[in-house]
């Protein structure tokens, strides 16, 4: 069976706020933050609607005492903020921090710096590479154990959580810091625009008339320890991770399979690992990007697993935008907040039911007993990941 896996610290920064309590307040008060891009100029006009973190790079550098002239990517700056909060909450000793395994995720790394430095000669080496972001974090927090950076596009940080879950469950490490960070940059704005996946309006997950996604940015990290160790250390357990699985569609480089084979498999395998039935799931925090393809496929997967008894479900991407590699970890934190506060967050902007889905997403903040929350994340390349969280108090 292995160790039980406890979450003992979380940290988050998103368009909803610069820490956990700000994010919680924005969710609780149904205050989404999707606005025209303001921190940098893109070549898309008018400025796209995005979920942008309010703090500028200048403010973030000041907070972390970096000289203003030091080149440091926004992806790293956002991650610093979230990791710091997670470490503080978990009360890790300096030794525990040094010995923690660190599994991070990003898709763009320091592309925000790199793309501004044409013809690429006046920049630090390796800014564009995802792994550099993790090295920066290790340097700052004095971590020197196993590390890696997972890059599976929009499921990246969900996969970093999956890996951390396995490492704790099978006793590979005492402490694992997992999560991900991605900053908005022209590379992704133009990329998703070229794929014609970006909506010019506020995104409408699971709505029949949805027109695409809003991009976002942010970071979220979780500290994972064995349940037993957390109890011995008298730590507050925020939630347990009881199942985590990944599968692949093997269908298309960017589109998900119409029969939702990968998405179905990942949920099925996560349920199996959690030793629970579909009926045990109380809420699903969906990937729900609001692209026609994603929501159609995810709806199929939900029907494949839950039949006509789909639990309460919603996508929180209309609050934050799609934060790409950070999305899985951000939504993991939202899942934990849902469990802690026994509340389902609304699927904003939903008006018209999808024709093939009999059940509608939850569209208002709903207080309800929650024991198990399922969180789905899907990435290009057919990558599908499902995580199952259990309330700590149960």
């Amino acid at each position: 069976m292995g160790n039980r896996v406890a979450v003992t610290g979380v940290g988050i920064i998103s368009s909803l706020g610069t820490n956990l309590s700000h994010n919680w307040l924005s969710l609780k008060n149904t205050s989404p933050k999707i606005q025209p891009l303001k921190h940098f100029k893109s070549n898309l006009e008018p400025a796209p609607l995005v979920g942008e973190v309010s703090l500028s790079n200048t403010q973030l550098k000041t907070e972390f005492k970096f000289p203003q002239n030091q080149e440091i990517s926004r992806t790293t700056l956002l991650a610093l903020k979230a990791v710091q909060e997670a470490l503080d909450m978990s009360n890790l000793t300096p030794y525990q921090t040094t010995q923690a395994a660190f599994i991070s995720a990003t898709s763009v790394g320091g592309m925000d710096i790199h793309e501004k430095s044409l013809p690429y000669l006046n920049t630090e080496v390796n800014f564009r590479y995802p792994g550099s972001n993790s090295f920066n974090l290790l340097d700052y927090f004095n971590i020197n154990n196993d590390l890696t950076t997972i890059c599976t596009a929009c499921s990246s940080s969900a996969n970093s959580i999956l890996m951390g879950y396995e490492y704790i469950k099978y006793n590979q490490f005492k402490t694992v810091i997992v999560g991900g960070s991605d900053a908005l940059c022209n590379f992704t704005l133009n990329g998703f625009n070229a794929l014609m996946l970006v909506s010019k309006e506020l995104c409408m997950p699971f709505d029949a008339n949805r027109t695409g996604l809003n991009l976002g940015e942010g970071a979220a990290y979780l500290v994972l320890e064995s349940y037993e160790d957390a109890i011995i250390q008298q730590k507050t357990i925020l939630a347990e991770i009881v199942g985590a699985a990944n599968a692949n569609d093997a269908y298309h480089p960017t589109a998900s399979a119409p029969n939702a084979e990968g998405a179905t498999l990942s949920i099925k395998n996560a349920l199996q690992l959690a030793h629970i039935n579909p009926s045990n799931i109380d809420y699903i925090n969906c990937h729900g990007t609001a692209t026609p393809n994603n929501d159609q496929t995810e709806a199929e997967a939900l029907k494949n697993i839950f039949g006509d008894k789909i639990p309460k479900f919603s996508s929180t991407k209309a609050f934050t935008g799609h934060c790409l590699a950070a999305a899985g970890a951000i939504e993991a934190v939202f899942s934990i907040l849902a469990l802690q506060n026994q509340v389902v967050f609304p699927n904003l902007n939903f008006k018209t039911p999808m024709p093939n889905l009999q059940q509608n997403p939850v569209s208002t903040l709903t207080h309800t007993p929650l024991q198990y929350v399922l969180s789905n994340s899907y990435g290009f390349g057919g990558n599908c990941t499902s995580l199952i969280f259990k309330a700590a108090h149960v």
Partner: protein
Amino acid sequence: MSKIYIAEMASLVSFHTNNIKKTRPHAASDNSQKIILKNPDFAGLLPANLSRRTSTIIKRAIYLTNQIVKTNAPEIQAIHIATGGGSQDESTKFLENFAQSLPNAILSPQPFFLSIQNAIAGHIAMFLNLKVPNFTFCQNNLSFESALKYTFFKLQNNLIQSCLFVSIDEFNQENFNIMNAHQFIKNITDINDTFYPSKSPGHIAGEGGEAYILTNQLTQNTIAEILTIEFKYKLTEINIKDFIIKELSKYQLALKDMDLILCGLNSDCLYDNMYDSVVHSPDLDNATILQYKSLCGEYFTAQSTGFYIGLNALQTQMIPEELVIKKSLSPNPKINYVLLCNQFRGAEFSFIVLKSIT
């Protein structure tokens, strides 16, 4: 805990030597600041429409996969990809496309989605029609090592029984230009220096790719056992040798037990001395020491090429003479243990121990 074995392997790099089993005749050195691979013949590998729409690195990865996924190969239960940069050329292409375009220009999305690091894994999954879990590890010069360690963990704990493991990176002119501007690359006037010991700073850039099937089942085709893989971003020990000795002791092994050492020497005189404590260790008098980056150059996942050479040596019990920097004093040494060690510019240290199965 299960033992971990290599069941199949393939590499894009061929070795110009009679002593090592030749693999694929597609390596070409242009004898300059970089070593570029000649592409294998991709004809017939992919349907024409898919072939046109994919990148060179993805074709290379699929080519390698195709070499080792045979009817008698173990059933693949996971796909793990190690790559520092993924399809870097596609990423550069997309950067240039939007940098040079007018506002709101309609761009081709192809280089964008191909540049996403797990496009390699996604295409392999499609090629093999495999729905199994797949992960892509991008940790700069520890990409190969961190991916290998996770794979090792999964197999050791029987979470999977076999894994298709692809380690691949491509040369990218933009990255080369940055590294050259920062004087990481060997000056063109120093190219003809002896590779080791080198008197000049900088390394030669390169690229490469390997595919392996790792399993926790011993079969007739098993090539070797992976005994351990360890890595550190920064060393707390005084030198590489101390790091290795400490890690080996966990397996009741000592340096003197090692028969073949593959050092990640890359001809940069500023950092090759990091290996001095290993190369000049009297404990290794009966071991043969090799370098391998004169064949493939330096790149994020270069140690995978050394890994491949080490596996070949274990399988064939032959050592490629031109890579030898120090010969064993033992008259007829049998190769039982192979040790690989690597670092990049004083950080990103790793070591791997391979063991003969005979």
